[in-house]
C-alpha cells in the first residue's frame, strides 16, 4: 500500500440544494419588464405585476419552448414572445389569445417568492415541497429605514466551481491570513438545524498593502450565519482606526450548474451619527468595494483548485467535515435528513499557535521590506554623489 495521500475529488451532487435562494434586490425587478435569471441549471423569468407582486417562473414556455424572459408583461401575466401564451405568477396559463380554450395541463414550474429585507427570495426544492416559511432569513431590524444606507448589490460569476467551495469558507480560519491578509485572532463555529455560523475577530496584516480584511487599521468582529444552503447574513462591527461602523453584509449565491454559481453580495451600513446621508452612502460603497476585493481573492482560488472530498486537516483547521455534514441536509430528500446533519455542533479553533507563527512571518516580511526600501535610496544617493564629483 502506498503512503501517498490520495486526493478524492468526489462526485458533485446531481441536484440543487433545497432552500431559499436570493435573486437580488426587489427594486431591480420593479420596472414592469421580464428579467432573466440563470439558476438551477436553467433560466428563470422574473417580473413584477400590477399589484407590485414579484413572480418567478421557469423561463421557457410549456407550449413550444419560447423564451419568456424575452416576452412582455401584459396585465399581471408574462406573455411568450413566440405565440403570446399568457402565464400567471401561480404557474397557470391564463389565456391563449388565438385559442378556444386553455389546456387544463397548462401549468409550468413556479417558484414561491418572499420579499424580505428588500431582497427577492425564492424557494427551491426538487421534491416540490411547500415553501418553509419558518426557515426564512430573519427580518433585519432597522434595514430599509432611514437608520441604514440602501443596499449595494454586486454579482460575481464563478464559472468553474461548485458552490460548496464558498460554504467551506465558514470554517476556514487560515485562509483569512493567506487570502484575505488578516489575522483571525478568535474563531468559532456553531452549526444547528438549518443554520451554520462563524464568529471571527480579526485585524489586518501590516506587511501587505492589503485591501479588504487586510487593511492594517481594520479590526473586525464578525458574526456570519448561513440561513439554509445559500444565504448568509454577516453582522460586522468594524473599528477602523477608532472609527466604528456597524456593517451588514449579505453573501448569497445561486447555483447555475453542478460546476458553476453566481455569487451575490450586498452591503448596508448603519448611518454613523453626525454623518450626512451622502457620506453614509459613500461609506457603504467603500465597504462594498472592500468585500469585492475579498470575494475576488476567493474566486481566484476556486477557479484553479481541485474539488476535495477528503480534505487533510491539521489541528489549527476548522471543522470542515462537520460543516459538510450540515450542508448535506440540503441535498438529500427531506426523509433522508439524519439527526447528525442538524444536531448542534460547536467548535472553537485554537488560533494561538497560528498567530504566533504569523506574527513572526509578518515581522520578517516587514524587516525585508524595510531593507528593500532603504536599498534603492542608498543607491540613488551613491549615484547622485558620484554625479556631483564628476560634475
Amino acid at each position: 500500500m502506498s503512503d501517498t495521500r490520495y486526493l478524492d475529488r468526489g462526485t458533485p451532487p446531481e441536484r440543487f440544494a433545497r432552500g431559499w435562494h436570493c435573486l437580488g434586490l426587489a427594486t431591480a425587478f420593479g420596472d414592469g419588464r421580464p428579467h432573466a435569471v440563470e439558476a438551477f441549471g436553467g433560466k428563470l423569468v422574473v417580473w413584477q405585476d400590477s399589484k407590485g407582486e414579484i413572480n418567478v417562473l421557469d423561463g421557457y414556455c410549456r407550449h413550444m419552448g419560447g423564451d419568456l424572459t424575452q416576452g412582455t408583461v401584459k396585465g399581471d401575466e408574462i406573455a411568450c414572445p413566440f405565440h403570446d401564451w399568457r402565464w400567471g405568477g401561480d404557474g397557470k396559463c391564463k389565456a391563449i389569445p388565438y385559442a378556444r380554450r386553455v389546456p387544463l395541463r397548462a401549468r409550468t414550474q413556479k417558484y414561491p417568492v418572499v420579499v424580505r429585507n428588500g431582497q427577492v427570495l425564492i424557494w427551491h426544492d426538487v421534491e416540490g415541497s411547500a415553501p418553509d416559511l419558518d426557515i426564512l432569513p430573519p427580518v433585519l431590524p432597522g434595514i430599509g429605514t432611514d437608520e441604514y444606507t440602501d443596499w449595494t448589490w454586486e454579482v460575481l460569476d464563478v464559472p468553474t466551481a461548485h458552490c460548496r467551495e464558498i460554504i467551506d469558507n465558514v470554517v476556514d480560519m487560515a485562509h483569512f491570513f493567506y487570502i484575505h491578509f488578516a489575522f483571525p485572532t478568535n474563531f468559532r463555529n456553531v452549526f444547528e438545524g438549518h443554520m451554520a455560523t462563524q464568529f471571527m475577530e480579526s485585524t489586518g496584516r501590516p506587511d501587505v498593502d492589503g485591501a479588504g480584511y487586510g487593511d492594517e487599521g481594520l479590526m473586525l468582529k464578525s458574526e456570519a450565519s448561513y440561513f439554509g444552503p445559500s444565504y448568509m447574513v454577516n453582522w460586522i462591527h468594524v473599528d477602523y482606526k477608532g472609527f466604528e461602523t456597524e456593517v451588514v453584509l449579505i453573501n448569497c449565491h445561486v447555483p447555475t450548474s453542478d460546476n458553476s454559481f453566481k455569487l451575490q453580495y450586498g452591503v448596508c451600513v448603519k448611518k454613523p451619527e453626525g454623518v450626512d446621508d451622502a457620506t453614509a452612502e459613500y461609506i457603504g460603497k467603500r465597504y462594498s468595494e472592500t468585500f469585492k476585493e475579498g470575494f475576488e481573492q476567493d474566486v481566484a482560488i476556486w477557479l484553479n483548485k481541485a474539488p476535495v472530498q477528503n480534505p487533510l486537516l491539521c489541528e489549527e483547521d476548522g471543522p470542515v467535515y462537520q460543516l459538510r455534514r450540515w450542508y448535506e441536509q440540503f441535498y438529500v430528500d427531506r426523509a433522508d435528513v439524519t439527526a447528525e446533519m442538524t444536531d448542534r455542533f460547536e467548535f472553537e479553533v485554537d488560533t494561538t499557535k497560528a498567530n504566533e507563527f504569523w506574527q513572526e512571518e509578518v515581522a520578517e516580511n516587514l524587516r525585508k521590506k524595510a531593507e528593500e526600501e532603504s536599498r534603492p535610496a542608498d543607491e540613488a544617493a551613491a549615484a547622485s554623489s558620484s554625479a556631483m564629483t564628476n560634475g
Partner: protein
Amino acid sequence: MASFVPTSADTLEDQRLYTRARLTEVACLDCLATVGVKKNSEHHTSIQWTAEARAHCPELSRRANGRDSHYACPRMIASIEAAVREDRIPIGAEDGY
C-alpha cells in the same frame, strides 16, 4: 441517497475520524445534558450535541432561535472545564483529528 459521493472507501474512514473519533462524554453539572467533547489543545474545543441533550439544556432552550442561540451554554462550558481539570478529557490531537 448521498449527494457528494466519495470515490474512495478511505474517505468514509476520514469522515468517521474527523467527526466521531475521540469524543469524550461530558455530563453537564447543572442539567441532564450529555455531550461529546474533544480537545485537540488547551484552547481548542469541539462539542457534539444530540437532540436529546439539546432538549435538556434550559439555557439553550430559553434562547429560542435568535442570534444569541449561537453562543455556547456557559454551564456546559464550565462543566467541560471542570472535566479538563479532573483530567477526564485527553488534551492533544492525533495527526490532525
